[in-house]
């Protein structure tokens, strides 16, 4: 039945999409909203980054001075490193775990995966701040000792104060991010895996491919586009990490786990230096762009193949 309708629908569609006015008419509302909410603030921020001061003190044009300051500002460079390290570690872990979960859903649990999928996805809907407070309590020590240290004590170890060290805080932050978002990536890639035709997998099996070889040579190449999208999603989300690190340990100990976003917020809103704050925002935008382009470039060829 649907097949008979298809050509007619296609002609109708091509008639509409071939008409420039129609395209413009359909796109215009969304485009206007996009421009007003995304492009204008980015452009505004770019403009502000050439100034120094705030709305009260007045703005003074300083050209590219703010950018020069950025690259000699130890705190800013440290924040940049934190952002990048967090993004790379979190992305590698959450995409890998998400992919493994997706494989588990498709090849092991099959139709019975609905419950596990929901359970693993569930933390995604919790507010980040609530999750951060939860993890804070989990790793607590002293009067409010959390279960993690209880377990360590059970095995004879001494309580560890995770949140007083940079490495400890980052480890908790990554664990927290994984817990709350790997379910999302698993579902995303699960839908990708479902798109792989059953026949292809069947014929590969007949040719003798199984287990790791099947995944390595058939499943991964065929799900590469969705894998790539996941990497880009993940990088962009984790490069802009803010609330979790703020709520977990306020960017501490000291400012050692403060990412660029937190440094930007403090600079603009706590220290009232809007110009320099905007400069940090611009650097962050460029960083996201560079990462996205790099991921695209490095694998666009393979995807097209």
């Amino acid at each position, binding site marked *: 039945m649907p097949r008979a309708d298809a050509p007619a629908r296609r002609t109708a569609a091509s008639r509409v999409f071939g008409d420039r006015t129609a395209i413009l008419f359909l796109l215009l509302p969304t485009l206007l909203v996009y421009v007003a909410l995304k492009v204008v603030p980015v452009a*505004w921020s770019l403009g502000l980054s050439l*100034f120094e001061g705030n*709305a*009260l003190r007045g*703005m003074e044009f300083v050209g590219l001075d703010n950018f020069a300051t950025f690259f000699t500002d130890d705190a800013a460079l440290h924040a940049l490193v934190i952002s990048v390290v967090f993004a790379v570690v979190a992305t590698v872990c959450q995409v890998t775990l998400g992919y493994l979960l997706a494989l588990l859903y498709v090849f092991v649990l099959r139709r019975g995966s609905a419950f596990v999928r929901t359970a693993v996805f569930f933390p995604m809907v919790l507010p980040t701040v609530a999750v951060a407070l939860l993890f804070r309590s989990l790793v607590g020590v*002293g*009067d409010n000792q959390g279960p993690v240290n209880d377990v360590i004590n059970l095995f004879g170890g001494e309580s560890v104060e995770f949140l007083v060290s940079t490495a400890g805080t980052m480890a908790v932050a990554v664990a927290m991010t994984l817990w709350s978002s790997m379910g999302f990536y698993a579902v995303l890639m699960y839908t990708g895996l479902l798109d792989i035709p059953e026949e292809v997998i069947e014929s590969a099996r007949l040719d003798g491919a199984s287990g790791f070889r099947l995944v390595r040579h058939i499943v991964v190449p065929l799900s590469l586009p969705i894998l790539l999208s996941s990497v880009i999603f993940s990088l962009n989300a984790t490069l802009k990490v803010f609330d979790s690190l703020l709520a977990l340990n306020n960017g501490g100990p000291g400012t050692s786990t403060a990412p660029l976003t937190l440094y930007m917020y403090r600079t603009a809103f706590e220290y009232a230096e809007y110009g320099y704050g905007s400069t940090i925002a611009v650097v962050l935008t460029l960083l996201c762009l560079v990462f996205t382009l790099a991921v695209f470039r490095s694998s666009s060829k393979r995807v097209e193949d």
Partner: protein
Amino acid sequence: MTTRRTRPFAVASTALVAIALTAGCAGGGGGQAGGGAGSDPDTFTVLTPNENETLEAQLTALSENQCKAENEALPLEHQKVAQADVVQKVTLLASQGALPAHFVAGTDMVRPDGDLGASDRVLDYEELLTEAGVWDDVLPAAASTVEGAYGQMVSLPYQYNLEGIWYNTAIFDELGLEEPQTFDELLAAAGEVKDAGYQPFAQAGAAGWPLTRLMGMYIFREVGPDAMEKIRDGEAELTDEPYVAGATALADMAADGLFGDGFNSLEPDAATAAFLSGRAAMTYDGTWLLGNINDPAQNEIGAENVGFMPFPAVEGGAGTADQWAANAGAAMALDPAQAGPKVKDWIACIAENYGQQALQDAGVLSGFKVNGEVTDVPETTAAVQEKLEGVDETVLWFEALLDAKSNSLASTNVSLLTTGQMTPEQYMTELQASVDAAR
């Protein structure tokens, strides 16, 4: 096809960027000139921090009683802001000419060289209150604390807090300890307390300042009451020996386990609970703790077992123990442009009546004279009030004169200092670099 389709968008977005840039440039110079004779607004709008519920409640109470006439002439209206958003909100409101008449502001903003101070957008209360004949209602010590912290009389002392060491007299009696007079005696007492199985100090490391205050007080006792003014004026550096000694003293206290386990993630409420439940023998905190101490539901050790002493002297230091640390709450400024006759009447009425109202109703010690009788003052509050009246010289807190960024750095880095991830020298070097950068 692709190029033809993208070109209009490219042109459009370039145009938008250009427009936004011009708009961005134009938006910068906003704001109106302050100062001069003000004219009354339609309401007496007061912006207070969410965290300070007492202030809102007490002003409302005044509007219904002692300041009823003023309230009828110019009705009181409240606006709230989270303490953490004060600088951001006030900056934006001021730049749009939309400041409330009476508002909370960032410490840095109201100083003579601050964003509001430099453009005369904060009024000096001394002139106003003298004109109204009620300047005597501001306690001289509170006025000097306000002037010390903000460089001018641009805040009303709705609170007047002393800071010192609250201690559990029952534990001290049990161990036969006297009130320590020197820092070494304090450490010795803390050692005995620890050996007896109590936690010596309950300090909320999560907030930062409960730790930096100890370091700051050591420095004030070692260098003298003008220790931080010397830093501000560039006459001394935080990397100088006596300043580093303060950081070393704090780091040593932490290393000796005087703050208990997990103090770096301890929240202020939990620290208060540790002291009031009798687990910890001492806590360095302000007189705002009286509210908790006077509340039998929170105070398990009994108000009669709570003692209050100043941070002791450091042997050979230039400061003395009777130079109490004091503060007058967050800056509550007045917009000169709105200081018309009715607003002035309101302020005068507050100065005359707030002291009695707040003490009677909330047990809060303010920097205003208590006019009229106050009944049923709890014993501890009365004792602190007595101490307050006897104070001749006060010192500010460690971060008081630092710029906003250095202030924040001082309290965030202190967890690195107290866990040995930063040496006292590194801590002070980094802080001094931040102070220098803000000059």
